[in-house]
């Protein structure tokens, strides 16, 4: 794994490198280098299998981290490519031409995180959510509790007990003196 990253470093300016295990490393790259790096890994280094593509919301730093995880079966190792993109202008180049299956991941990211991938097939079609108009739900600033309180009504005839008070009443009833 170390040799691979040394080799890649000569071709592309690589950022922070984390060797998580002997067979798994994560490396950060700038968004411009992503496509040539993926092509190099796929065509020259044997990382032919796109395991997953997902995003992490680092809201404190106002950034999304996109993780492209690639696997090389013959060498039995994996490499994760981290790309940080601006949270306010969340868009990224599509890689559906490299792996057709990436289109599904990109559709999900568009819906769940609001990250756009212009040109990706059916990117604007609904994937999981139907008729969703709120903030993309997997963003950290989407408040699930507020959403459910606003959207769903409490069923009549039910009351919500404060768990602490309820336990107190049940377990330690006040003894009348």
């Amino acid at each position: 794994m170390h040799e691979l990253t040394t080799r890649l470093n000569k071709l592309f300016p690589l950022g922070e490198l984390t060797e998580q295990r002997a067979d798994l490393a994560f490396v950060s790259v700038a968004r411009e280098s992503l496509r040539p790096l993926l092509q190099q890994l796929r065509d020259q280094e044997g990382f032919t299998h796109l395991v997953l593509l997902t995003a992490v919301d680092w809201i404190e730093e106002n950034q999304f981290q996109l993780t492209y995880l690639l696997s090389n079966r013959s060498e039995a190792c994996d490499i994760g490519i981290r790309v940080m993109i601006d949270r306010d202008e969340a868009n990224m180049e599509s890689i559906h031409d490299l792996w057709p299956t990436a289109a599904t991941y990109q559709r999900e990211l568009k819906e769940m995180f609001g990250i756009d991938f212009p040109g990706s097939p059916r990117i604007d079609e609904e994937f999981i959510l139907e008729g969703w108009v709120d903030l993309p739900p997997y963003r950290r600033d989407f408040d699930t509790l507020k959403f459910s309180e606003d959207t769903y009504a409490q069923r009549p005839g039910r009351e919500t007990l404060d768990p602490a008070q309820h336990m107190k009443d049940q377990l330690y009833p006040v003894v009348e003196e």
Partner: protein
Amino acid sequence: MYEVDRSQYPAKKADGTLDIDLESGKYLKLWQGPQHPGITGNMSVELTVCGDEVVEGKTHVGYLHRGFEKLMERRSFIQCFPIVCRICVPEPDFNEYCYAAAVEELAGIEVPEMADWIRTLILEMGRINSYLMYMGGQAGSFGMGVISQWTTYVRDLMLDRFEELTGARIYHMFILPGGVRDTLPDGFEQRMEETLQEIEKTMQEVYDAMFCNAIFKKRTIGLGYIDPSLLDTYGVTGPTARAAGVAKDVRKDQPYLVYPELEFEAVTGVDSDVFTRADVRRRDLLVSVDLIRQILAKMPRKGPVMAELPNVLHWKIPRGETYIRGECSRGEYGYYLVTDGSGYPRRVNVRGPSYTHAVALLERLIVNVNISDVAGLMVSLHTYPPEIER
């Protein structure tokens, strides 16, 4: 490269989509699912048919979305553990294992050896359950309803073994970060052996009635061919890939738990059609039966099953990220876990094999297939919708 024949179908538009005029009366939209006997779980396929031949198919999911990945971001590491098994109903143990292993790696916890053996045992038991369920579904999709009654019977016996080992039949919640809950109960080996023999006997009957059946052969041989060159571009893993002759098996490629100490070979096929995929799974099921026997013969009987954990109510894990994978009955199952130093996961992403199989791959394979074969084709990819939408 395998290209589907679209010669007799409408021209493509500039953006690559098909130019289908529904008003012409030549085409019909047909929804298979979400409530349909020929669909795997809660999903649906929107078919555009011309006569009885499918011109285009689109997978629709979302009927089962419960937002597990989001839920886990608001729960402590130990609170996530009873949630993860619900991501895949027929084979929940892989979620427990992958999540536990990811947490252990980032928190630097060493798991006792005995726990690794019991984890492997549970994963193989779950694999058998999942295959038995598949076998019934695959036969049912071609009109042989009785096979699913046989396989459900032996699956029920295996659920009994799960019940005595873990206390639960479906969601076992037995593999938790740090190890497993308990050791094997007394007399477990004997009862497991009886169950395994019953499974072998039933699988022989399934072989005779299903795999030697002329109708089943005629309908499945040549159906849903996947070219080996498509495997990597479509992220195909597991028995679906092995049926195409590529011995992709995480248990062999990147061995985990105690698999290096067990003797087995990855089962492969050649023809890469529905029949071969079913046959690969049938033989893989028998490999799992053999693996359980090996595990019970080789595993240590003494020792701790649980590592010492910090106070789980105040458990903080340093910033980091990792990916853990395992070979489930459908292919590569993985968990990508990101932690940020707090008491909650920053992000959990579940990589289920159905994600690629049921959407991109199915939409490609379904073209030019007869409507009556759609169900069989879909079942042959062995997809479980909850792991698509998590």
